[in-house]
């Protein structure tokens, strides 16, 4: 269905109202929530690292320690880091929770992430050629891309990317800027010079490697191998989890793509429309949503990236009703179903052809 500019501007007004209702009431509740999250993250990180060393008492303590450290890393990256870096808690004026000062427990430098994710991905969501998060330059996920031989084994590429996800994220901007390989793309404006990009990439990466694979094993003395293995495992669990959540938010079967021509000089309403069609949600219990950093409500997150994420669940029914009213597909399903369609999509586009996923717009 095609929406007129008039309908799009009405859509924008309704969604703005949904947002304003939440944003006007931000206060103690949200502040308490995120501080409690921060406390949980700190406690699980510290106790996880201690329990791992106590693995000599019984290996179960080590297992428990690994789980706690993985939990700490997931909370740090998702419910705290991702959301704080979006500026969701900037209004609190707290230096520990401010988008400009926050740094997270992941190989990717926070400022680099903000440029590629907050700016590129969230502004140009699913516009082929502009949003490099669509397939990460590695996977062919729609027939907008020409088929190449390497797409044949892209399921393996995907599994490798998931395993090393933090490094993929960290290298993302350098890949886009062609810092090490490739010819610079015409028209791409780089705001940070290459030497600074390299410095941030190597600096942050080295600190993370040193912490998990040199510093903590060293102070663990005879338990160094257990600690090293535990840290490796915790990082792996976090990588698989974040990658899976993110793939379920953008690469499920019914997620649409857009062409650059469709979005040139688009209205705010059209931007909203694109965000709904470019994302997908999945369901689950409350703790599950927290572990995804509420990216299980990817649609709401893309509509309102600076709204404190704990509200996504409460505004989701309103957003769904509005989408229905305007006849916009609202892509939601169980986690397993959504993930199955992600894998199917990766496999389908491993081969040439495939159906078009470009959304209908006024300019189609």
């Amino acid at each position, binding site marked *: 269905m095609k929406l007129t500019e008039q309908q799009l501007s009405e859509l924008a007004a309704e969604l703005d109202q949904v947002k304003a209702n939440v944003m006007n009431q931000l206060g103690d509740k949200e*502040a308490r929530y995120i501080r409690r999250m921060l406390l949980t993250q700190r406690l699980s990180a510290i106790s996880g690292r201690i329990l791992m060393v106590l693995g000599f008492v019984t290996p179960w303590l080590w297992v428990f320690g690994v789980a706690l450290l993985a939990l700490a890393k997931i909370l740090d990256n998702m419910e705290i880091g991702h959301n704080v870096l979006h500026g969701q808690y900037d209004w609190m004026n707290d230096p520990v929770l401010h988008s*400009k000062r926050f740094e997270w427990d992941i190989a990717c430098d926070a400022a680099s992430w903000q440029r590629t994710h907050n700016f590129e991905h969230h502004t140009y969501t699913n516009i082929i050629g502009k949003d490099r998060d669509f397939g990460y330059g590695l996977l062919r996920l729609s027939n907008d891309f020409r088929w190449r031989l390497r797409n044949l084994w892209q399921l393996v590429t995907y599994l490798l990317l998931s395993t090393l996800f933090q490094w993929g994220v960290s290298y993302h901007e350098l890949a886009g800027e062609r810092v090490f390989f490739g010819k610079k793309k015409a028209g791409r404006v780089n705001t940070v010079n290459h030497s600074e990009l390299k410095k941030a990439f190597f600096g942050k990466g080295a600190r993370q490697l040193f912490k998990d694979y040199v510093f903590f094993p060293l102070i663990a003395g005879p338990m160094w191998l257990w600690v090293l293995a535990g840290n490796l495992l915790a990082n792996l669990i976090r990588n698989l989890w974040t990658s899976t959540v993110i793939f379920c938010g953008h690469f499920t079967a019914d997620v649409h793509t857009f062409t650059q021509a469709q979005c040139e000089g688009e209205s705010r309403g059209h931007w909203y429309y694109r965000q709904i069609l470019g994302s997908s949600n999945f369901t689950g219990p409350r703790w599950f949503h927290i572990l995804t950093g509420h990216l299980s409500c990817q649609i709401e997150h893309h509509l309102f990236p600076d709204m404190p994420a704990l509200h996504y669940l409460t505004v989701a029914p309103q957003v769904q009703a509005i989408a229905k009213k305007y006849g916009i597909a609202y892509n939601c399903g169980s986690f397993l179903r959504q993930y199955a369609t992600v894998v199917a999509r990766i496999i389908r586009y491993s081969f040439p052809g495939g159906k078009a996923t470009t959304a209908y717009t006024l300019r189609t």
Partner: protein
Amino acid sequence: MNKSISSWSQRLYRQFSLMLANQPKLGYYLKPLLRWNNPQLHPDYHSARVIDFGWETEQILSVWLEPASSWSGFIPGQHLLVTLLHRGRYISRSFSISSSSAVFAQQKQIRISCRIQPEGQFTNALATAISGLTHLSISDAMGDFVFRPQSDSTPYQSTVMVAAGSGITPLWSMLSSVRCWTSPIVLFYCVKESRQAAFLTELKLLAAKQPLFRLQLIETAVSGRLDLVTELTTNADFSLSQAQYFLCGPAAMSRQYQHDLIQQGVPAAAIHTELFGLAPPGSAGPVKQALVLQQGRVNKLQATAGVSLLQLAEQQGLAPRFGCRIGVCYQCVCQKKSGQVLNLRTGQISGDGPEQIQLCISAAHSDLQIEL
């Protein structure tokens, strides 16, 4: 040599802290843990225990604080930034210290006194919350509006102080801190009516006890505005150019008296001023001035109401960091030091204190100071 070792160890500590906790200092990692039940304390500032509070007048609230030992003291006349957790957010405002340095030396306590402004977000929040507060966060004392009668290299024959309304606070701190009176001080204390005058009993007591101190209360509702120069020159013995001046009150008043005194040949260096009161509301005119500080350089921008600060900065030759330009990506966030901005997306008007703003959707609502 020592300096290079200390800067080297600072760098090492920073790297260590970044490695271990992804924070420039370990305090940022540990404070959410250690202070989990007392979020009132801002991680960048000193904590201060609230000892007592009381009303000096119907509108002026005094709060006695006991700063933590990390706080390094003050010179009478200085002010500090007080930070309060209000509805989940840290809000800050600066206040002059109104107690004497002797009380701090003996009891480690200071007093701040603030006029509760009917429209002031901070002062109202403070007045409402004060009875339940155990702690506040305070910055180091700052400012050069200070009085050091003994150590002054250019001795003045006398001192003239002019306070308007709550502008009395730093002056009362100065007066009550003088231990050794060597030259006369006259205080012109302008209030609408005498019941609005804070510290009046103490001031009268000092005037009765100390022959070198003269208090002149001016009730503007009764006798009109003070004409400072005329008032001073009626006394034949008094020489305008031999005195130093401390003016504390609304900006317009300070500017007027400063202008009058300079016209009479008083050297500008002998006049000290401190501006008080809420920033003038935004309706003063369509063009505001934004002072933009960028790595130590100061740029003056002419800010047109309703136009985003990002656009203005670019038009006038600055290049702030930006991203989406529609308020989504938070790339252009920067620190506003003072002044009010209008959020172009929501129409909300910000507070006057320091906070972070998004340049692409903020327009000047008053004169501003911004740090890029």
